Each structure stands twice: as C-alpha cells, then as structure tokens.
C-alpha cells in the first residue's frame, strides 16, 4: 500500500512553548486514520501544520518534513495548491458569507476555473456527495448562513470536496451538530474512502472505532499509539495510557 502522506519528525511550538513533539507517521491511500486524544493534545494544530494554515499564526514555528504523494510540502512550496490538495472540515459549522452556490464555487473560482458549466457541475456534484443537494437545490442563491447547523456542516463538507483533495481532514466535525447529521456524514466518509485518504480528528472514541482503519492516540503532542483500530479497541495496546483513555479513565 502506498503512502499518501508521510510525516517525519514534525514539531511545532507557539512562542517557544512546545505543542507537537517529533511526530512521525504516515497516512496510507484509501484509509481513514482516526486521531484521538484529550483536549489540548495538539490534534487541531497537527491538521493546521498539514495544510500549512499554521503559517497564518505569527507565533507558530514548525519543523520537520511532510511529504504528500512523494513531494515535499513542508518547506517552500506553492501553498495555495497544497491547500487545495488537502480538504479541511472545521469543528464549527461556519461558512463563507456567500450564497450556497457561491460557497461551493469559491474554491474552484480561486483556482482559476471560469467556465460556468464546469462550476455548476462541480457545485452539484459536491452537494450531492455531501448529501445536501436535495435539500438546497431550489434555493442555491440563498445565503449559506440561513441553513441549519447540520446543513451547514454538510455544506462545509461540500466545500472541502469542491477542489478535489487527495486527503480530507476533519477536525471534530460532529461536536456542534445533531446525531442524525453525524451519522449521515459518517456514511459519506465511508463512501469517500475508495477515492481519497481521510484523517479524522475526534474526541469521540466510539466514532474512531466506527470509522477508523487505523487509530492514532495523541497525548501532549506525542504519538502514544498508532495501529489498527480493531486491535487498539480490543485492548491490544502497546501503551497502557491508550487503554486508560479509551476506557474513559481520563481525558
């Protein structure tokens, strides 16, 4: 199995304060990698390092090597292109202050797509993948902010898919939405697995169990455990802290 993403010795500090410590792992093609861990263990920062939005935080300094499909993306690289290769779904369902149509058309337009038919096709395709098309197809020109929380999170997913990413990152996508929408999105993720790799950051250990092919336990900026999900959740762990966390003894 080839590696979609390779991370070597990734470290991150905010104003001298170490947040991620020498992480090395990889993400394989067509897998869902679940990342679990208590709050403040650096999970969100890790995702920001991958798509280099960490660059927008002035006090952050990152070191290490990240390779996407064999090419190094951690140093000097075309950042806009990188961010289009990685899709990001953030925790809070906040969209862009545009119409529903324009929300999903935003990334293709910024990438230079100008053909109206192509954009319309992309919008419909992504909204269908995100299981939102039927609910909004008659009101595409309405502002995205008028949708419910669950619909907005699906809109975020549609946006993230609109630039054909190779890796889809989801950062605790379900904390602000209802269980029904959560389940629908989880189904979508399973359907997406044959096409791309997915990194799923979650503090719902059961969600990791349901979806993850492999699971990583991140604690205080360090990888404590990384292995097949079923083994980890059946108690076969290399580090006792993993079992502690999964069983709810802390975090």
């Amino acid at each position, binding site marked *: 199995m080839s590696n979609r993403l390779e991370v070597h010795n990734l470290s991150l500090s905010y104003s001298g304060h170490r947040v991620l410590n020498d992480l090395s792992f990889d993400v394989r093609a067509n897998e869902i990698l679940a990342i679990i861990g208590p709050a403040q263990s650096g999970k969100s920062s890790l995702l920001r390092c991958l798509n280099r939005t960490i660059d927008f935080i002035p006090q952050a300094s990152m070191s290490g090597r990240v390779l996407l499909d064999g090419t190094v993306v951690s140093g000097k690289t075309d950042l806009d292109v990188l961010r289009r290769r990685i899709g990001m779904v953030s925790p*809070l369902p*906040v969209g862009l202050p545009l119409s529903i149509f324009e929300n999903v058309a*935003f990334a293709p337009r*910024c990438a230079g797509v100008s053909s109206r038919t192509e954009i319309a096709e992309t919008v419909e395709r992504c909204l269908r993948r995100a299981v939102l098309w039927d609910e909004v197809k008659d009101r595409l020109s309405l502002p995205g902010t008028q949708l419910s929380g669950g619909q907005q999170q699906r809109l975020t997913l549609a946006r*993230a898919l609109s630039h054909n990413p190779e890796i889809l990152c989801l950062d605790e996508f379900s904390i602000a939405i209802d269980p029904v929408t959560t389940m629908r999105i989880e189904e979508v993720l399973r359907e997406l697995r044959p096409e791309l790799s997915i990194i799923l950051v979650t503090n719902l250990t059961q969600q990791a169990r349901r979806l993850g092919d492999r699971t990583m336990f991140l604690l205080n900026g360090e990888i404590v455990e990384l292995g097949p999900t079923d083994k980890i959740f059946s108690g076969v762990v290399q580090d006792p802290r993993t079992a502690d966390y999964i069983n709810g003894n802390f975090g």
Partner: protein
Amino acid sequence: MSRFLVTPQVAAKIRQERIAHSVLALILVSILIPLLAIVAYLFWRAAPALSLDFLLSSPTLGMREGGVWPAFVGTLYLVTISLAVAAPLGILAAVYLTEYARENWFNKAINLAVLNLAGVPSIVHALFGLGAFVYGARIGFSVLSASLTLAIMTMPVIIASTRQALLSVPHSYREASWNLGASRWQTIRRIVLPNSISGILTGIILQVSRAAGETAPIMFTGAVFYKAIKPGTLFPYALDEQCMALSMHLYTLSTQTPGVDESIPNATAVLLLLLVFSVNSVAIAIRMLLRSRVR
C-alpha cells in the same frame, strides 16, 4: 413582601446619588445649550441671505454681495480630488495593517505614524504643502497642491474607519477561505472587503466632511478669495489654477472684508454647516443601518 428599612445611611446614599445624577445632567445641558444656541443664532442671522440663488450665483460688488457658487464648486473640487488620492491610500494602508502586518517594531512604527499624522496641526500641514508641493514639487499654488495637502491630512480618518470595518469581519471567514486554497489577497478581495463596505463608506464620508471644512491647509497652497470664473459652469477650475473655497470664503469675508452685510458671512457659515452636517448624517445613517442588519 419584606419591609425595607431606610436607614439614615441609605437615605444619605440615595440623596448623594440624586445629587450626582442632577449635577451630571446639568453638565450635559450646560454644554449642549450654548452649542445649540450658537448654531441657532448663526441660522437666524443667515436667514435673510439664505436662498437657492445664494448657492448658485457668484459674488458681486467686490465680493460684498451675491452668492457663493464659485466657492462651493471649489470646495467640491478640493474634496473630490483629495478623496481620490486619500481613499485608495487609506484603504490599502488599513488593509495592510489588519491583514498583513505582524507584531514587530516596523508595524508599531506605522501605528505610531498614523496616530501622529492625525494629530499634526493644520497649519503645519499647510507648511508641509507649501514646502513639498507648491515649492518642492514645483506644482505651484494650485488646486492640485491644496488637494494633495488635504489628502494627506485626512488619510488617517479613512484608515481608522476602514481598520474598524476590517477588524469586525469574523476571523472564521478568513480561515474558511484559506482552508479552501484562497491566497491572502483572494481572501481579502472576495470575502473581507465586500463585508466591510459600509465601514469603508463611513470613513470616506467622514473624510469628505473633514476636507470640506478645512481652511489653513488650503489657504497657503491653492485657495484664494477671488478668482474670476465663467458664471454657471460646472468645471470652472483647471488643476493647475487657484480656486475659491467655502471655508476660505468665510474666513476672508469675516476678517478682511469691511462693509459686508452680516447675513452673507452667516449664510456662508450656515451653508458650510449644512454641508458638513448632511454628509455626517449620511455616515451615521449607514452605521445605524449596518447595526440593525447585523441584529
């Protein structure tokens, strides 16, 4: 319902509170009454001369009678040209400060400079305009020199309003945009600026108001008391010519022109006040509209 005893201490507190309230209200009234009285008096004295004709006709009889049209047009010229220079500069400067600048000494210096630019005395701006534009750049005593001087003087107003507008755009919009592969400028152009338009507009309107009322900066760089122009034309001044202006007109009329009926300078003052008040009211209205829409 329990009994609430008014002890002597509590009574004293209540009395003190009432006194404080009355004193403060009195302070407010003592400020507002003279101000409103002055404005009302100006209007009253101006009444005989105020008319549409006053606005549209030119001065006659050695500037002692007639209207103020050339001065009004001159003010419009100065305001428009200074706005055309100050707005792009100010807006982009504010964009730099909110979207690009990091916390380092370089940008602290810029913030300091903006604060100081706003506090430079208007006569020093006049000296600067004289030294830099009239003589330094050899533009001479002209509409252009005066407008450029006004532009630099009023730039901080636009910077302040634009900054406020940009900062009020939620950061989550920018993050969502970056996550989708938009560059910083694309994010600014497509998301941040369109959502700050009303604040930017407010800044522009405030700049217009400031520029229309200033006298000292234009007195020595391009404005004159009398300039012969063709009556009734809309574009009487060329950029390299001198021009008349309402503020200059009021100043000279009231300090250096004997034998003028009092109503004329009063009417000029009232015209200037009406211009400034109506422009500012538009800015206030825009702000209120924005606030009610956000709610």
